[in-house]
């Protein structure tokens, strides 16, 4: 990144510097140099987030554990390709974890993406998102759940099916009998709404 651009980014109005993200960037840079201690530090910070996401996506702890290992090994190998301008370290690592889970989900095969399968999955997601005990979530996680529950029902469901179950826009559109453009817009707006909540939380 051009140092001038970097300076402009950090001084952009309404975008306070995120100390945590900067710390993570430093750790990633060290991992790119082959520092295993830094990888261990990243693991301590994000293992729970990654593992929880993978458990939610894959549904069983053994696979989630293997996928967690695969995720951090991918982080180790790809750290030198991380670009701070493209994404925050946390988002970058979470997307790697999601990619690992998607590969495993695709390998399982899902069968036809029809309405009953969609409704069954949505029901399962509803139980997961609202069935967990409060103590299992910290303040940030609770804020994210609350934000998700505030989204219009169709938007929240489409978003979770796309992100957590790997359904494509086309498959969701077919299963819900909605136009593809509608589904794309719903998912897009849902992601932006959640982003706004996250920004608001960090202040």
């Amino acid at each position: 990144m051009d140092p001038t651009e970097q300076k402009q980014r950090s001084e952009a109005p309404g975008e306070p510097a995120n100390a945590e993200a900067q710390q993570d960037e430093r750790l990633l840079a060290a991992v790119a140099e082959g520092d295993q201690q830094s990888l261990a530090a990243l693991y301590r910070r994000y293992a729970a987030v990654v593992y929880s996401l993978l458990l939610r996506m894959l549904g069983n702890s053994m696979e989630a554990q293997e996928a967690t290992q695969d995720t951090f090994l991918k982080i180790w190998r790809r750290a030198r390709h991380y670009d701070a301008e493209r994404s925050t370290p946390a988002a970058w690592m979470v997307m790697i974890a999601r990619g690992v889970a998607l590969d495993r989900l695709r390998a399982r095969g899902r069968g036809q993406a029809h309405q009953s399968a969609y409704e069954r999955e949505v029901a399962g997601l509803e139980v997961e998102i609202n069935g967990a005990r409060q103590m299992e979530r910290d303040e940030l996680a609770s804020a994210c759940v609350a934000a998700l529950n505030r989204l219009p029902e169709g938007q929240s469901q489409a978003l979770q099916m796309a992100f957590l179950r790997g359904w494509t826009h086309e498959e969701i559109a077919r299963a819900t009998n909605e136009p593809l453009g509608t589904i794309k817009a719903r998912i897009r707006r849902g992601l932006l709404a959640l982003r706004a909540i996250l920004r608001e939380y960090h202040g």
Partner: protein
Amino acid sequence: MAEERNFEEATPYVLAELSQSAKHRFERRMEVSAELREDVRQLEEGALALALAAPRRQPPPEVWAGIEKRLARERGREAARSLFGVRWWRSGWAAATACLLGWLVTLWHVYRAEDVQGPEGPAVSGVQERQAPSAAEPTSGQSGERRVSSAVPSSSMTEALHERVKEVIALRRQVADLSNRMTHLSEVFRRQEALLSTPGRLTFFQLTPEGMPAAVLAPISTNLQRALWLAMARELGWVGPGVLGPGQPDQEDAGAPSGVEANSGTNQAPVELVDLRSGSNTMVQWVGPAAEPVPAEPAPDYQASFTPASVPGFVSGTNAVLAFDSSVVAVGSTVSFWTAGSTGEFQSLGQATVGNNPVVVTVPFSSGTAYGGSLTVVAEGAGGVSNVFQFSAPGGFGP
């Protein structure tokens, strides 16, 4: 409108729904569009919020242990590859390919030579035809030149072919042999690396005379340093424990460096190895690799002004290795070794005599108790003067 289109394309990208080609096209567009990069960043942050909404669970400890193991395996593979790996193979096969090409070029020349000289032998005697030179071919001024087109190769061509085939076979054998040696060397390297990376593999110490401050101690003599280095190399497996002495043939060892010679014709003092482990009291004489000549050091006047010296050594596993020469104790001194357990009782480990040559003594050494371990060395000279060297290891000393 453009902004909407950007968002529309960014969402499938963030959710990994694009095909490989579409993904690459999108990434190229991102490289030149800050707006698109910002779009993607915002969408990924929204996705992060979704991930954070999951009920938090800690992975079990074995997950990180598994990551460490896989990282160690990857590093081991990379080390072996970089030593003699793909680069060597490539150069080896490049050499073989160059030889094959050379053979083909030679064969082509042989064919052309046969064409120019005419047929030889019965195999081609009946098959001759005159070919009109084509526009691309240079014409020859000799009318007697005949071009041979034969379906059967001449005996000289057959011989040349056989020779080339033999060469290729020999080259293949060489490549196989070199690859075996590469594998062996990689294995040796891996073992050495494992040895050296083991924490606490060798822990060095110095036995000091009882009650003597370190500041007044004499430096370690050159002979003693050499003896200690040889003992260390033996301990690490870099050289074999070859038993060498005057008149004995060299003992070949896979790990021994070149240049190991019998003790004749060198001015290197042989190193005497004394093993007091497991109740054995064996002594062998060992020269070790040839080194630069070392000037003989004058024997100290022990009685008059003997500057006390420390006994250098190291702990390797459950053994302590100590080195003595005339700079530490008087020639002819008997050195006895004692250890004291946690309850204070002394136990004799054996003794050795220090002659003109450096002596390396290996004794069992255990620091496994909570109180550590101790080693006491008593050196008794001919005149009855004795020196006591003491070493006490704290608990947990050594690997």
